[in-house]
């Protein structure tokens, strides 16, 4: 029987045009609180792409209302997502009209009709393209999306499924001078990643990796550790990150990884490539020491964090792209994809080239 498991065939990424260093941001927002300055000055993030509000006469940024932020999310989606999608499809000789299933993921803005509908209108997808929007699941959502995308692809051999992780994190920013918002504001960046998935015998000789399986893990006692909730005083949604997240995630990281690998009769030493979400320095350290990964194994996780910040659901695809560009992957190699986010959640997937 033909092995018709879905493959991760092509990937495209894009970011908004403006790139800011951490020092640029401190200047721009006229931050002088030494605690916040020190937070922005740690070296694991060097630059991020962001949509910042226009400057006022006194040099500071204009205040953004929740309405402004929602409009920013929509504008970012329309400007950036099509570039990522084109970069994903063009190398395959495909256009959006060839896409049969569209899954869009976002946690940085609320839109109804959703991101899929907006992109279909702006890019000219076929009107019979099936679609699904995954909204509000956070940084782990790329794998929560890849699971149904892979299932859809397997159930519809030969058809093209496109997953788009569309995160305009600067549309979820609140600047109020507190450490709570400073932590968030120092970490997240804007970016979109698009991934083409297809199960097709025509791809039998393709080098692209097959998706073999998933394993999920939720740590419900830590449900409040990462949350996006309403700040009455600011009149905006505000993201909250608990300081214990790295440890909660670290202490549980082995569980889904062990289940995933055991199910496929593999040991950790058989995994050639680890593609871990660039959640932040501490959470990556926790993953490293809890599942025994070297700095080398998380080199792309670190470099994506350094160059883009945390891109939420799309981060792992940016790392995945860097891994492919490096040209060291060989046929037969196994890879584990791993994303972490609110819930608290750890999502994993096993792939093989």
């Amino acid at each position, binding site marked *: 029987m033909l092995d018709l498991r879905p493959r991760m065939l092509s990937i495209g990424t894009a970011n908004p045009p403006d790139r800011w260093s951490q020092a640029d941001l401190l200047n721009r927002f006229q931050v002088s609180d030494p605690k916040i300055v020190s937070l922005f000055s740690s070296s694991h993030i060097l630059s991020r792409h962001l949509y910042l509000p226009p400057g006022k006469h006194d040099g500071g940024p204009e205040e953004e209302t929740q309405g402004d932020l929602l409009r920013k999310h929509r504008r970012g989606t329309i400007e950036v997502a099509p570039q990522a999608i084109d970069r994903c499809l063009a190398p395959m000789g495909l256009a959006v009209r060839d896409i049969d299933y569209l899954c869009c993921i976002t946690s940085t803005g609320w839109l109804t009709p959703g991101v899929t509908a907006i992109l279909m209108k702006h890019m000219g997808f076929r009107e019979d393209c099936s679609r699904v929007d995954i909204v509000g699941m956070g940084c782990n959502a790329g794998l929560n999306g890849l699971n149904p995308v892979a299932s859809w692809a397997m159930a519809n051999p030969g058809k093209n499924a496109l997953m788009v992780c569309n995160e305009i994190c600067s549309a979820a920013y609140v600047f109020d001078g507190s450490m709570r918002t400073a932590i968030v504001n120092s970490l997240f960046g804007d970016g979109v990643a698009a991934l083409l998935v297809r199960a097709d015998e025509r791809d039998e000789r393709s080098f692209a990796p097959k998706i073999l399986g998933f394993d999920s893990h939720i740590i419900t006692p830590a449900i409040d550790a990462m949350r996006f909730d309403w700040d009455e005083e600011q009149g905006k949604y505000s993201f909250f990150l608990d300081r214990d997240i790295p440890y909660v995630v*670290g202490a549980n990281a082995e569980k889904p990884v062990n289940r995933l690998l055991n199910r496929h009769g593999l*040991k950790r030493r058989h995994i050639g490539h680890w593609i871990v979400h660039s959640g932040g*320095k501490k959470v990556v*350290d926790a993953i*490293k020491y*809890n599942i025994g990964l070297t700095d080398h194994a998380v080199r792309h996780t670190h470099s994506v964090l350094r160059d883009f910040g945390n891109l939420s659901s799309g981060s792992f695809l940016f790392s995945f792209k860097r891994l492919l560009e490096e040209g060291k992957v060989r046929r037969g190699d196994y890879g584990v994809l791993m994303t972490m986010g609110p819930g608290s959640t750890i999502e994993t997937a096993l792939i093989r080239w």
Partner: protein
Amino acid sequence: MYETLGYEERGDIAFVTIKRTRINVRQIRELERVCDHLDDVSQAKVVVFRGHSEGIDFLDFDPKEAMDIHGFNKWEKLVNRIETLEKVTVALVDGPSVGGGFQILLACDQRICVPGATFQLPEVRQGFLPGMACYRLAKYVGLGHAKRIVMTGATIGADEALRLGLVDAVTPDLDAALKKTIDCFGPMHTVAFTLARRLLNESFSTGFEDGIGNFLAAQHRAISQTAFLDTLRAEHKKK
């Protein structure tokens, strides 16, 4: 079973005896199989690498063929596997440790040798490099001694090796010294043990800021294990 090695387990201890004293492809494969067994099957808490080695077998290389690096990469992966085994690793050296044999010593947690043992990295004199000994050796003996040993290929005797910190003990009675060493390690808390070893191995190449992040991640893992809770309970009981 194995052709180039001997393998047996006695109680908590796995003994790997180096039978072939020139490292060849077959021996590397067999050492990989030993590591698979130690990782996947064996309940042993201590692994002892015993014997001596004259280093790489040049007959494995054909001077008429183009050279490639992949065999060296395979070797380095093996040494790193030995270095990261979730067991206490002890090397018992009863003769010369040359080249690759020397490198395996550096990957072990403890090294004990007989008075007649010698240590040498002749690779540079032979026109190649002693693998990641260039990375590991200086951490044991300091850069000055490492340069002398690597660049001149000097042969180091047992007493000098002890003075340099290259070995932990010199004794004609390796078995007695092994018993003493194992007793020193006390209860084996695998997680704390392997984390401490990893942090130490990383200590020279990690800056303080990264180092403390690594330490906190590792410490959290350690204090979440039953071994630490058992210690707490025992201490509370005493009061």
